[in-house]
């Protein structure tokens, strides 16, 4: 077997574009997923009638589905609802936000539950409304406590974005696969993709561990 890794620098522009897409999708899905996830968690914590049950059903429902199925669903639904063709990117982004929100919601709920109820009582005692106490006192502490888990989830999400392969969105993996098939360099390209993902995720997870230690010492 003759390996020729020069195919990588020769196509660096395409690969960098792909990696940009992977990062963009990850970043937007994290932001969207956390906003929706926080909202779902708050509905359940505050025990808002009916809405709390809907939020719980939402979380259980999405956690029982494969991500690929959710991607296919939205790829099919979003153009139908919009009444016009939309790019794969918007459909996929909606799919990731809806899907990740279910997982973020559980993390955030656990984070909020870890904050002492005395904090809420104290905030209420100095005259804050329930929602003011939540957003100004409880949530900031909850987010600090769950930062390591949120970051770990971000690493998982970063890996999961590779599933956009099924609708052909040009992320890092798809760009590499295009080069692999065109230049007949499957072995080189897939090994390269694996090494890049490994280095990025492993480094990030070491960072998370360090942060965890720092938090434990505080």
């Amino acid at each position, binding site marked *: 077997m003759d390996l020729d890794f020069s195919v990588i620098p020769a196509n660096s522009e395409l690969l960098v574009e792909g990696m940009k897409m992977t990062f963009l999708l990850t970043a937007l899905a994290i932001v969207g997923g956390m906003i929706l996830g926080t909202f779902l968690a708050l509905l359940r914590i505050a025990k808002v009638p009916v809405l709390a049950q809907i939020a719980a059903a939402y979380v259980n429902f999405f956690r029982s589905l494969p991500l*690929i*199925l959710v991607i296919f*669903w939205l790829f099919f639904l979003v153009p139908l609802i919009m009444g016009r063709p939309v790019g794969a990117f918007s459909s996929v982004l909606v799919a990731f936000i809806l899907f990740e929100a279910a997982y973020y919601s559980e993390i955030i709920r656990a984070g909020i539950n870890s904050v002492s109820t005395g904090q809420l009582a104290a905030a209420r005692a100095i005259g804050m409304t329930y929602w003011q106490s939540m957003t100004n006192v409880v949530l900031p502490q909850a987010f600090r406590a769950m930062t390591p888990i949120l970051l770990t989830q971000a690493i998982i999400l970063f890996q999961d974005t590779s599933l956009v392969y099924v609708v052909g969105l040009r992320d890092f993996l798809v760009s590499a696969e295009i080069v692999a098939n065109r230049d007949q360099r499957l072995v080189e390209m897939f090994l390269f993709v694996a090494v890049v*993902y490994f280095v990025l995720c492993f480094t990030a997870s070491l960072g998370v561990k360090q942060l965890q230690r720092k938090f434990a010492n505080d």
Partner: protein
Amino acid sequence: MNYNWDWGILFRDPYAGWILEGLWWTIVISLLAWVIAFTLGSILGVFRTTSSPILRAIGTCYVELFRNIPILVQLFLWYFVFPEILPDDWGRWVKRDMPAPAMTTAIVALGLYTASRVCEQVRSGIEAVGVGQRQAGRAIGMTEPQVYRHILLPNAYRIIIPPLTSEFLTIFKQSSLALTIGVVELTAMTRQIEEYTFQGFEAFTAATIVYSLVTFTVMFLMRFVDKRTALPGTFASGGA
């Protein structure tokens, strides 16, 4: 929204049969991958908690390697790269002569990936049993393997039934990745129905219901098992 509904499609030939066949392959992949994941994950989990630094290092390297590469990339590595780096004859066997090459590859890839996750659960279970039990076992003259066989593992498994259930359900959901290398499991079947009939709504609804039903059934059953096998004197047993 402009759409022609036809729910009857799910019950007509050949589509009803496709869905059942897809579900069958999803279950086959999930169960066989789980056998690999559970066996290897348990061994690695033991490795990571033993007194041997070499075994611990092997366990750690395995977990870090398999956890930090996306499962889809791992699947492609096993399917496209692995046969190429083998000697020619072996590579040909893996690519063509092995029974159901794509399906087998998917099962092995999913199993090896999930083993890294099962390993971490087993490790945390063993750590939860506590050093006291380990020392007590050694003090009454048990060898280290005996301590694992008779004390640590039986207790650890009973503690980690809920996270192991989640790991199994993760395999069940991730078996859908097999469609990327051409295995026609449940998700692929419903995609195929969408492409043949343009009834995407009905097809994806069918898959959604089947996945949810299986997930909730497994969770319900395992909650029952968890109660029955709870260690006396823990919160899982009702706090008694």
